[in-house]
């Protein structure tokens, strides 16, 4: 469980009201990973959504291109919200990291039950992705559309 005050600091959860955050608070867990650890492997089934609390990450796409995330609130593993799906990129910790994590299946169930909340989360995830997508090649975009 993660406190509501902590959750509402993050961009993808910023628009949620206290009642919605309460649901998420009960589902959220804290996770740590060491420098150099591969948190997510591209192609593997997407089961967890990660929000960066502290640390630095590299998101590497299959064609070798990458972005790095250094700010708290960075989201990785969004494919967990597209079922059934595999991760589209590998994520490696550049430094020791801490995360707030959500089980993809639980979050998906919650989002499907509460459409208003789901819309807000998905809209915020779209904002995050739109900042990252410009450099992806068409084949990656197609894969993303298919949820892979």
């Amino acid at each position: 469980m993660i406190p509501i005050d902590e959750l509402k600091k993050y961009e993808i959860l910023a628009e949620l009201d206290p009642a919605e955050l309460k649901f998420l608070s009960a589902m959220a867990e804290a996770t740590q990973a060491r420098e150099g650890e591969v948190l997510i492997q591209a192609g593997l089934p997407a089961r967890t959504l990660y929000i960066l609390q502290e640390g630095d990450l590299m998101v590497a796409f299959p064609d070798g291109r990458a972005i790095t995330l250094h700010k708290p609130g960075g989201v990785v593993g969004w494919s967990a919200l597209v079922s059934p799906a595999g991760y589209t990129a590998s994520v490696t910790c550049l430094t020791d990291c801490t995360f707030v994590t959500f089980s993809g299946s639980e979050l998906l169930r919650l989002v499907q039950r509460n459409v208003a909340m789901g819309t807000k989360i998905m809209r915020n995830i779209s904002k995050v992705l739109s900042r990252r997508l410009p450099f992806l090649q068409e084949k990656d975009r197609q894969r993303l559309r298919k949820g892979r």
Partner: protein
Amino acid sequence: MGGFSAISAGNGWLIAAMGISVVFFGLASLAFIITYFPRAIRWWNDHAKSPKYTVQLLRSLFSQRNRKATISADTREGHESGELDDVEEALRLITAHMKEPFKLPRLIEVAEQRGLARVHSKINRLLVKGTMVGGADGLFRWATPNDRKEGVNSETVSK
């Protein structure tokens, strides 16, 4: 005549001492060349791009030495700064082969193969410092003075 007296008679001791000296100085020279080889290559690469680089390089080397001397050698900060300079140099050599812009995961992979320790955190420090920058195309390169003036992609770098 045989044994030590034969060696002495044939100037064997002198020849042996000279032989040892030649080998010693040969190996010392080789070590010196190997130590400075990366810098020489870097200088050569950059010099080809800009003739004024020689002066700049000498100035920067001199000021770097001065700066390093002023930082207490046994402080952690000073140690890490020097260590980061060495890593930067090693990474620049690797990227010189890869050509710029380069793929960051590939750079990490090659650097690890070459035995660089804690590559991830060191590259991260170079990114945060703005020495290495990520482009909107997902490829990375070494920063130029213009990058420092204009700033960089906010998601890709900077805390």
